[in-house]
């Protein structure tokens, strides 16, 4: 029946082309928009997942409340004029060795890195800037994050194990007006400020990190805080990042420390992704819906116009199945062709977009080009949507064609 299907399609070039165009635009738009959004999302997600820990264990910031004060029993005869309130003094993980044992034994944990994270003030000449330092052992830290990939100068290893060497975000360096190999003053506010030498820079593309973070060795950070051998955080990398929130949930049950999966800490960004996905999908659905109705309409009209043809074909011995194929094929041809052309068009648009230079920042990847995803899944999905649309919108009119009774058509003179 393919032969006849094609002939009937060709006989209505304008109609067929219009529908073809609809499906083509639908699938091309899906590929292009998905490529752009997913490219951006994967890049950001990669940073969220791999720049930071999959799970971060940190010291709980305990806030004193009136209830805490109740622990002083009546017998103690303690009376407060103004009860103490606010944050408890020391923030540290109470029993890190327990965690280390637990993490070493856990089969899902790929690596972990004990850290000291502290709010600090960077000072260079008269310029000061608030930020944070992360102190870690570089061998462990490099196993947990992919920070090395984002190094602009120097190597992450340059922080060493001691010696007050520091690596900072490029934006932070610009803000401070300082340069590589220069020394700056770092202060926690409570302990004595110390001099650190800048031995490297990094750029993740995430503004908050690049503008306010510096890495030092674990020992140097402990000295800076004046709390030797204490740690404030443990960054954990899992073999499968998707398990992070479940794992974090389990750990929460058996610990008083604060445990945060990357999903929780990036909840805001993830919800933006969700919105993007909804926009992307609803756009595609509406385009495809229009194309689907187009196929449905054209085939319904065609089946009606071709009643005489159906009658004569049936009298020649063609079966109802053959008649269904005659019409169904036409929808499928439009779906296949439209889908295929759409994929190619979408791909071309993606290639062009990936060559567009953008202002450095969130939309850009390394090299300041737009990040476009060429994930095969996008193309498979786009094609499947086109085919599914064609199937669904063709089957109903095609079956109506198959059910036409040749005798009734002939009796009515083919009208």
């Amino acid at each position, binding site marked *: 029946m393919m032969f006849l299907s094609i002939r009937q399609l060709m006989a209505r070039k304008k109609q067929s082309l219009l529908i073809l165009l609809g499906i083509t635009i639908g699938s091309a738009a899906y590929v292009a928009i998905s490529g752009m959004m997913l490219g951006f999302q994967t890049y950001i997600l990669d940073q969220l997942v791999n720049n930071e820990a999959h799970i971060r264990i940190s010291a709980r910031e305990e806030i004193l409340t009136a209830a805490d004060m109740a622990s002083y029993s009546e017998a103690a005869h303690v009376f407060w004029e103004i009860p103490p309130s606010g944050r408890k003094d020391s923030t540290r993980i109470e029993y890190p060795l327990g965690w280390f044992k637990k993490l070493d034994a856990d089969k899902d944990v790929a690596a972990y890195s004990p850290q000291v994270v502290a709010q600090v003030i960077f000072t260079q000449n008269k310029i000061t800037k608030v930020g944070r330092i992360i102190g870690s052992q570089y061998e462990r830290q490099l196993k947990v994050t992919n920070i090395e990939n984002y190094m602009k100068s120097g190597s992450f290893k340059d922080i060493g194990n001691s010696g007050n060497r520091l690596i900072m975000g490029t934006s932070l360096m610009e803000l401070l007006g300082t340069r590589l190999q220069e020394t700056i003053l770092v202060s926690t506010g409570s302990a004595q400020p110390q001099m650190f030498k800048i031995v490297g820079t990094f750029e993740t593309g995430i503004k908050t990190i690049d503008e306010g973070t510096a890495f030092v060795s674990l020992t140097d950070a402990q000295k800076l805080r004046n709390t030797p051998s204490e740690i404030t955080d443990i960054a954990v990398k899992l073999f499968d990042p998707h398990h992070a929130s479940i794992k974090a949930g389990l750990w929460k049950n058996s610990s008083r420390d604060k445990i945060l999966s990357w999903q929780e800490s990036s909840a805001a960004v993830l919800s933006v992704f969700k919105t993007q996905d909804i926009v992307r999908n609803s756009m595609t659905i509406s385009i495809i819906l229009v194309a689907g109705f187009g196929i449905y309409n054209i085939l319904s009209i065609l089946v009606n116009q071709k009643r005489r043809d159906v009658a004569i074909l049936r*009298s020649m011995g063609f079966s109802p199945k053959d008649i269904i194929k005659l019409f169904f094929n036409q929808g499928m041809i439009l779906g296949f062709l439209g889908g295929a052309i759409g994929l190619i068009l979408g791909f071309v648009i993606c290639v062009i977009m990936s060559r567009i230079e953008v202002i450095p920042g969130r939309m850009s990847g390394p090299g300041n080009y737009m990040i476009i995803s060429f994930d095969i899944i996008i193309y498979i999905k786009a094609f499947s949507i086109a085919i599914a649309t064609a199937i669904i919108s063709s089957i109903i009119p095609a079956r109506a064609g198959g059910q036409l009774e040749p005798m009734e058509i002939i009796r009515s003179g083919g009208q």
Partner: protein
Amino acid sequence: MIEIKNITKRFPNTPVPVLKGIDLKIEDGDFVSLVGKSGSGKSTLLYIISTLDHPTEGEVIYDSQNLKDFEQEEIYQLRNHNIGFVFQFHYLLAELTAIENILLPARKAKEVEKRRGFAMELIRIVGLEGKEHRFPGELSGGEQQRLAIARALVMEPKYLFADEPTGNLDSVNGKIIMDLFKKFNEEKGTTIIYVTHDIDFAAMARRRINLVDGVLE
């Protein structure tokens, strides 16, 4: 041989049956005209004999095989290989050329290449030589009907059924059609049953069946 036994046809919501217990035998190679007043049931009888319609009661038997015992697929095969139809309206497919229209039944039988030579011969016989690549819209009414006859004959069917094949044609073109029928009946032994209003055309048959008020006269 086609044998019909005690055929009755009643349409829903009509009190009087159109056909009332008809018995008829059509021998292979027969050339039969079916006549009667308008509305007497000629078309109804023709379509029941030719498998397109079903009787309310009675049997239609092809070479001692009852149509009731046929699977649907066997009926389609029977139509494809053994039956040719010519209607009052030509029912050609507008998107296909003359030769492609003729070869449509061969397409169902997957014998397009095998039948192409014969199709070209038919084109010549029905006087459409040189017009095989024209579309139906580019042919006259007489030529269209001759094309439809060529299509009905391309599988060299045993039976040819025609319902007023000359009804839309002038007498000259009608005569050409009837001569073609006669030729195929005589040279190929095709069994032909045709409905007609024309007394002269009816007289060309070897046997004439007259239908009056749903019974054979």
